[in-house]
């Protein structure tokens, strides 16, 4: 199929109705255009985000009001609860954060920012999205099979996940494994494309140090993904065989090893955090330089800390297993490496704060999101130290403190970073401006409830509340009234936050039709994508690709009258 659909040329092909219909399909569904594929990833990711958010709503309601019928879902049984929690985690990480941050922004930004007409492997790019789309459908189908969806947590530790007698979801767990494996293959194909394109298709004159930080970071993230996903694919194959063929790779009764899965899983699982973190970091860098009218503070330092983060991210993964029965001596090494990785990340935050110094800061909607990313991620970062240090992890492991910590990292990454990117590049994507007032309403309506959800969960975690429990009534120390009150606060804040997303969706779709025309460069930005039309036509620069003369962050240069200096302007 991949070979059979030809892309329509810019001329001709519209003389018959049949052709016209074909052109819709080939233009929006089977297109090889990187921008269309980016939109496909974005919309699929947003749809999955709504599903993941709905799951969160269902199980948070059960926690706040145990035993009550949840409007829109019904009774949440223990099995339902486990399936919801598992699939919330899986969807939000693999079907929201990855497709939106890496695939959507990677596809949209890389060719536009490095000044080429398309990805170097456009058909592989399309295949990547098609596999991804299938994987999403496969995952969701697991809710409709006998036994229900997989409920063994997104980490899928065997023997629970490997043996249907334990998990009681014979089909759900196999479907989960297949969906995740398909999804990895999709991003693997995408990653090859991103790295090769960024290497090989740069516009004339663009040196390595002239590449915008966000492109660098997506490329490094793709490299991290590709170098870490292999062992997990191996593990997924083994898990699938354990479930369906009758092997016993993870079954201790037959000489298998259950800790082996954790070994393979976390080898991927920790770099994965940086895979989604780096693109969000890059998006933030682009936005704060534009709206502070400042050159990025120490471009090369940012780049080297990115590489340093990448290198260290391969050496920290066993901190997830401190108390999982690994050799206790390994904890020392991994405590040290985990605390070491705090250094480049902290340095990145310092660089971003330093970039603000001496700026002329406009608080537009994208800028608010970018600033919120820095602040909220800072909280997520510092609370990670508690978990990376082996001594304190003995207490915090698998409590709500962990949960609140990684939501304070993943929420800024996947949600705040996405909204920052979408509001910033919306004019380029659709040629229209979004409504700023609605944008700000949505911003405050998302960020304030977000903190109200997770600060109570920090407190609950510190008080010893452990994870993945559908009802705390059975634990006398955890059913104190003040704790139940905090659970209700978190849930109500979640409902408010989900409701506020309607504002975004209204703004997003209404602005496509009613928004003010954006023009080529509404934010007065330097990078190459703003020299193309809004939205860019197929081929991006039909009149010829731009030449590049300088780095991407020459704002407020003293020799210039304008406070910006686009990369493609000779002098």
């Amino acid at each position, binding site marked *: 199929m991949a070979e059979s659909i030809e892309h329509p040329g810019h001329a001709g092909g519209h003389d018959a109705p049949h052709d016209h219909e074909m052109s819709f399909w080939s233009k929006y569904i089977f297109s090889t255009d990187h921008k269309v594929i980016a939109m496909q990833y974005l919309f699929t990711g947003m749809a999955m985000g709504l599903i993941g958010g709905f799951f969160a709503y269902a199980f948070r309601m059960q926690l706040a009001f145990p*035993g009550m019928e949840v409007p829109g879902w019904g*009774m949440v*049984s*223990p099995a339902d609860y*486990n399936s919801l929690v598992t699939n919330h985690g899986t969807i939000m990480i693999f079907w929201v954060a990855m497709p939106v941050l890496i695939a959507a922004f990677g596809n949209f930004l890389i060719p536009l920012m490095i000044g080429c007409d398309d990805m170097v492997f456009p058909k592989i790019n399309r295949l990547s999205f098609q596999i991804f789309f299938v994987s999403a459908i496969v995952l969701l189908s697991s809710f409709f099979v006998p036994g229900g969806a997989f409920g*063994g947590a997104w980490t899928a*530790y065997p*023997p*629970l996940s490997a043996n249907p007698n*334990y998990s009681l979801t014979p089909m759900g767990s196999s479907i989960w494994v297949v969906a995740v494996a398909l999804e990895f293959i999709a991003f693997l194909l995408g990653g090859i494309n991103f790295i090769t394109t960024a290497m090989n298709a740069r516009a004339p004159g663009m040196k390595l140090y002239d590449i915008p930080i966000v492109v660098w970071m997506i490329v490094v993230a793709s490299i991290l993904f590709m170098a870490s996903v292999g062992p997990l694919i191996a593990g997924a194959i083994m898990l699938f065989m354990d479930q369906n063929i009758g092997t016993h790779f993870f079954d*201790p009764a037959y000489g298998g090893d*259950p800790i082996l899965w954790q070994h393979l899983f976390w080898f991927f699982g920790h770099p994965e955090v940086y895979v989604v973190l780096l693109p969000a970091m890059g998006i933030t860098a682009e936005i704060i330089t534009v709206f*502070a*009218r*400042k050159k*990025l*503070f*120490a471009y090369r*330092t940012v780049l080297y800390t990115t590489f340093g983060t990448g290198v260290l991210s391969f050496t920290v993964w066993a901190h997830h297993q401190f*108390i*999982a*029965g690994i050799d*206790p001596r390994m*904890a*020392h090494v991994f*405590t040290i490496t985990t605390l070491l990785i*705090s250094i480049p990340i902290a*340095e990145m935050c310092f660089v971003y*704060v*330093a*970039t*603000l110094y*001496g700026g*002329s*800061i*406009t608080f537009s909607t994208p800028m608010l999101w970018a*600033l919120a990313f820095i602040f909220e991620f*800072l*909280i997520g970062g510092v609370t990670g*130290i508690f978990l990376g*240090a*082996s*001594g*304190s992890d*003995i*207490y915090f492991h*698998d409590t709500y403190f962990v949960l609140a910590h990684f939501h304070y990292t993943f929420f800024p990454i996947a949600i705040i970073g996405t909204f920052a990117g979408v509001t910033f590049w919306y004019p380029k994507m659709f040629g229209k401006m979004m409504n700023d007032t609605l944008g700000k309403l949505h911003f405050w309506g998302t960020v304030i409830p977000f903190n109200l959800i997770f600060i109570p969960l920090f407190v609950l975690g510190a*008080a*010893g509340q*452990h*994870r*993945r*429990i559908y*009802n705390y009534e*059975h*634990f006398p*120390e955890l059913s104190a009234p003040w704790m139940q009150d905090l659970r209700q606060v978190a849930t109500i804040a979640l409902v408010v936050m989900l409701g506020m997303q309607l504002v975004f969706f209204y703004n997003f779709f209404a602005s496509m039709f009613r928004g003010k025309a954006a023009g080529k460069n509404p934010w007065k930005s330097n990078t190459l994508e703003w020299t193309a039309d809004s939205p860019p036509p197929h081929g991006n620069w039909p009149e010829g690709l731009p030449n590049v003369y300088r780095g991407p962050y020459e*704002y*407020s240069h003293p020799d210039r009258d304008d*406070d910006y200096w686009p990369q493609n302007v000779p002098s």
Partner: protein
Amino acid sequence: MIERYLVQASTFAADIDFVINLIAVLVGFWFFLTAGVFFWLLFRFRRRDGVPSEYITGEEKEHKRFISIPHYLIMVCDIFIIVAAIQVWVNVKQDLPENPHAEIRVIGQQWAWTFVHPGPDGELDTADDIVTVEELRVEVNQPYVFHLESRDVLHNFSVPVFRLKQDVIPGRVITGWFEATKTGTHDIQCAEICGIGHGLMPGRIVIESAADHAAWMAGKAPNQLAATVRGTTVAATGGTKLAAASGDALNAN
């Protein structure tokens, strides 16, 4: 911090709380410093008409030191945290008490805890072992060594008041220790997802004085292989509780 929510009921609870407090102070300092600077910059350099922004590359030495000095200071803080964390870790997870008062066996299964206490003779695997379900009884101020076993999937033996957690792995015996310092009755959690009944696996730990403990032991007939607690046997526990769980979900409470 943690002791505000949960008593410190083991010898190492205070050590773990110390590490937590140390980290809280160190990262708290950096957090508030960075956040303070961040908001001050946002206020100070908000856009004003006629005030252009400065051109700072950040590549010169005198600018770069705003990054590099905190960078080194953070490294120093990291060393403090690493040393404290490793000391506590070695104490809790690697060292064992030389003369434990008794050894106990903890067996996790879907979805119940079984505890094997050495009877009055103080030895495991003898005729007077006392087997209980979901209730562990230990003597205060005595070091205990525990052996964790699982019959099916991963579980996690977690006693929040002890600040203790350890995964339970099928096919392996994992050894650890604790010494309670306060009498009382507290939660035992299963902190690793173990299937549908994961939320229904609460245990209780009863820490009692030597006299109470001896009295409890004396009250138990020897060789109680299927001891009853709350009227359920080991074998029946999983099924009964699952039924109870579905009941919970159906009958709004």
